């Protein structure tokens, strides 16, 4: 399992270009992930690989096609120094785990990688790096396996309740 390293401000147009937004199937979307900006990703990504970005990963459009395209490519975890807000929430909701790693810059493209969520770290090229857990109410969604699974058994919600 390897790292696919990207830079800062990776936008959702780069993750999945606008002309593919009539596709909703993750496996089909994955065929066009990073098309035009990093074509080898769609061909080379394998189950369990990890995408690593810099700051503001997933900025731009609210398109949920972006986390779906990564999931379809076999990516289960995205690591970045920081995430754009809508992408972060979409990732949690769809079952793609976004992990903030202050030291993401030290991870290199192609590094062998493993993730220990309960331990709160990832290991890239033999080096252990701490990752921040998903906070509060979003953790419950992660634990349920996404917002659909979380919401399926709810009949109603208590409006104005706090987490």
């Amino acid at each position, binding site marked *: 399992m390897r790292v696919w390293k990207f830079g800062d401000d990776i936008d959702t*147009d780069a993750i999945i*270009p606008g002309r593919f937004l009539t596709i909703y199937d993750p496996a089909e979307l994955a065929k066009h992930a990073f098309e035009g900006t990093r074509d080898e990703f769609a061909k080379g990504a394998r189950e369990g690989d990890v995408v690593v970005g810099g700051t503001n990963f997933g900025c731009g459009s609210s398109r949920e096609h972006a986390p779906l395209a990564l999931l379809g490519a076999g990516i289960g975890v995205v690591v970045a120094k920081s995430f754009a807000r809508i992408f972060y929430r979409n990732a949690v909701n769809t079952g793609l785990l976004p992990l903030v790693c202050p030291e993401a810059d030290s991870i290199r493209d192609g590094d062998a990688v493993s993730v220990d969520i309960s331990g709160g770290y990832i290991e890239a090229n033999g080096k252990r790096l701490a990752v921040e857990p998903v906070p*509060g109410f979003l953790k419950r969604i992660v634990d349920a396996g996404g917002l659909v699974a979380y*919401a399926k058994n709810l009949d109603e919600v208590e409006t*104005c309740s706090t987490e």
Partner: protein
Amino acid sequence: MSATIAEKIFSQRCGRTVRAGEVVMAPVDAAMIHDITGPLAVRVFGEMGGERVYDPERIIMLFDHQVPADSIPAAENHVFMRQFADEQGIHNYDLLEGVCHQVVMEKGRAAPGEIIVGTDSHTCTYGAAGAFATGIGSTDMGFVLKFGALYFRVPESILVEVDGKFGRRVGAKDLILSLAGDIGADGATYMALEFTGRALHEMNMAGRMTCANMAIEMGAKAGIVRPDAATWEYVTARRDIEPFDLAGDADAGYRERRHYDVTDLAPQVAVPHNVDNVVDVGDVAGTKVDQVFIGSCTNGRYEDLAEAAEVLGTADAFADGVRVIVIPASRTEYLKALRGGLIERFVEAGALVEAPCCGPCMGGAFGLLAPGEVSLSTSNRNFRGRQGSTQALVYLASPATAAASALYGEITDPREV
């Protein structure tokens, strides 16, 4: 207790004091879905066991990204959404009215103090009406369709106070681009921008919408213009609502207070490939352009088209070799421009005028760029590949700068035309 506008809106809607940082399951006053992200929200609603939406009258549906349908899958999406609207009793504006954010505003579906969500990142536009409005993904929208509420982390706010008077042919777009350049693409992540100051309050609603629209380009969750008489005039002309006071308190716990003066502001241009990569127009003047796009939820209103037409003046034609695409943001704005003679002027000068829709901005429908081509656009994003080829270059600017550049075939300072 003193509070920001964002805190006041959440407190008012929750019936108790809510502070920045708190996570609340807040009621949603209106929810907007369109043809690209809506179908996934509807599917998710079904997967969540949803049968009837929480309140069809609070749901706004329309198609604007791929209209008229540019492919069979797009046409199928439209059919799918129409069926859902019929089953659920949702009013569907369909593909007739225009770009979602313009339509929500002009139909009076956004008002001060409301909490509004939309499956589009530029939903923050309704902050021009004093609403707390934010873009969400389709799965969150599935949840909203079912429950009429959503978990929100109440954001901290940055107060943006803008004073001074704009120079000739400089305006709202130049201001918001300069702010993006200053604050940065992630400088307001998870926060609300609250706009006030003389330059903002002297601005018409079209300009305020341009500013609120681009809050997301700084990572902000919302961009709220403090409501004033102009806000209430706009909103009360469209719906039955009693005006009330909604302002951030002077001693509220703002994360930051930023002060700007627009008096000496030059026309601004965002250069490829990031919205915060902003320079004075003079720095890129002379750059050849292949396509100029005047339109979008950012700058497709009558006032924007009038600004472009004023620069066009009595010139016979746009420069040879430049494709000029003009797309009014809505049917209403189109009619205003038509009746005002603007459309005739644009067509005479050689522009393609298209029916209201997102057009080249979403990079999927039409108006796409070939490798190596250069576009100057009044829209909101210049990401690599945003308007077609990843080898194309997109510059962002105001309608005045767009018109000046279309006249000369290269990026041109509108003050020198």
